């Protein structure tokens, strides 16, 4: 308490001497509400330096974002004509595995039979495929739990309890629509942005 009072005394002393010093300028610049020309200069100088610092910081932060050559690989074309029903291929999209799977009618029926209300991440097969191309399931081959590559795309790999994909790291089971059915993964396998550019070619990204 003593200290506070002491500071207040010092402060008022400084203000008094300041006021006497700036008396001349006050008459010239106008002294409304105790704002002095020096205050304006201080605020302006600090703001100017601040804007300068931020404008230099932006490129320094932005350089961490993906560079042009990384972004140039951000879209991939896949020819799906050679994939027979029941088969899948593993390819690369944005340096990560991409699964393209040709579903059999039985697999489509199995995926459609499940009521979406029972699912952890409710989505129907229609939501996860393109209209008129229900047999093509295109998903990232990245488990939504901790990013491992699930098994089930290549021939002979374990497909899990629901016939889709199985992640060996922590035991997540995905069904034939790539939806999470059992295990720790929180969401379905991600469906990237893609479009059919011809009946047998898709452009991902």
């Amino acid at each position, binding site marked *: 308490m003593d200290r506070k009072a002491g500071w207040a005394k010092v402060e008022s002393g400084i203000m008094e001497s300041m006021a006497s010093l700036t008396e001349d300028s006050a008459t010239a610049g106008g002294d409304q509400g105790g704002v002095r020309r020096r205050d304006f200069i201080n605020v302006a100088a600090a703001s100017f330096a601040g804007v300068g610092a931020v404008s230099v910081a932006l490129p320094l932060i932005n350089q*961490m*974002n*993906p*560079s042009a050559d*990384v972004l140039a690989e*951000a879209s991939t074309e896949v020819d799906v004509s050679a994939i027979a029903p029941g088969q899948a291929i*593993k390819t*690369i999209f*944005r*340096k*990560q*595995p991409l699964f393209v799977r040709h579903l059999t009618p039985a697999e489509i029926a199995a995926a459609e039979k499940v009521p979406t209300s029972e699912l952890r991440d409710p989505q129907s097969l229609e939501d996860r495929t393109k209209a008129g191309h229900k047999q093509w399931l295109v998903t990232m081959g990245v488990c939504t*739990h*901790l*990013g*491992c*590559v699930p098994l089930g795309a290549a021939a002979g790999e374990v497909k899990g309890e629901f016939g889709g994909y199985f992640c*060996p*790291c*922590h*035991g997540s089971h995905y069904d034939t629509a790539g939806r999470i059915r059992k295990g*720790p993964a*929180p969401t379905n396998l991600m469906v990237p942005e893609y479009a059919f550019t011809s009946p047998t070619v898709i452009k991902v990204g």
Partner: protein
Amino acid sequence: MSFPWANEYKPSNAFTRYLDERLPLPRFVYNAVGAGYPVPRNLNYFWNFGVLAGVALMVQIVTGIVLAMHYAAEGTIAFASVEHIMRDVNAGWFIRYAHANGASMFFIVVYTHIFRGLFYGSYKPPREMVWHLGLVIFLLMMATAFMGYVLPWGQMSFWGAKVITGLFGAIPLVGEPIQTWLLGGFAPDNAALNRFFSLHYLLPFVILGVIILHIWALHIPGSSNPTGVEVKSEQDTVPFHPYYTAKDGVGVAAFFLLFASLVFFAPNMLGHPDNYIPANPMSTPAHIVPEWYFWPFYAILRAFTVDFFFIPAKLLGVLAMFASILLLFFLPWLDTSAVRSGHYRPLFRKFFWFGLVPCVIILAWCGGAPAEEPYVIISQIASAYYFAHFLIILPIIARVETPKPLPNSITEAVLANHAGTKLQPAE
């Protein structure tokens, strides 16, 4: 900054007198870690570990700078350049094994140092700032060690980077842009490897800077001691040099004995064989594990398996893992007992040795094990205890415990241990 009876630096020759008037660096060293720093006379060997941590950091900086002369941070040749160090560079195998095992030694020493602080109440006033700066060093060490493990670009490097940066992806809304920004791409690749190398080189020097602050903050109240009773008179202290330089020398010798036995006889014991397989983004190792010193935190991360109030389990795990360390920043206000040392706190001591210590060891054991039963349920119980220990048990103990009577001074405590000794001033 120091006690009034501290020895004063006296330059001994013309050169040191000349220097003392212009750049009093010898005076600074003399007052910091020389005969000018009075230290409680009763420190036990647990008080060695601060100096040992400094030694470990120096080993890492020296071996690291040498390794950087031969290593190439480029995705296609990083793995090969590490093999080049192992096979072609003169004594390269020795320097790399020393660096890899040096990291383990650093963590062994720092964990002992932290648990010393936890047992003897070193975090209590007036040393809260010492504790906080120590935690900052610990966080920086974890970041440095993680990025260093990525550099050899083996399978564990790659998948470790993917899992750990994936943690940031769990943050709602901004998570994925942050992850992409951290990696400079959509998955770990050249950009990530390069920036990790840059930061891995930088951070040890940041750690060095924070260590200087840590020691500065420590030297204001002076070192704590096993009784937790503050220094009262000159009798309670001895000069740091030669008393503790000599005692620490014994500890440093023991440190290098253990270090050398790891480097020369079991250099890969603490590593993972999968990291000798080059990084492959298309194939995941069956069992991704971090280095041993991250196991307790990895166990907490994986202990959350069900969603809670719309918060996904994955995000909960990430929050809990960070909270398990950030929690320690609040420790000076959670443990409100006025008695520092665990020696005089019967209840606290029981929960420390039979609660906290086994809990962290069990978490470490679960973190290194595959994510399946019974490890999941065990790590859930242990994680729950870990948080309860700090948030519930410690505050309650502080209220209900009757501490044992404290000695009147450090000297009295020392003499009680050696009945028959006469009181005489330290020389």
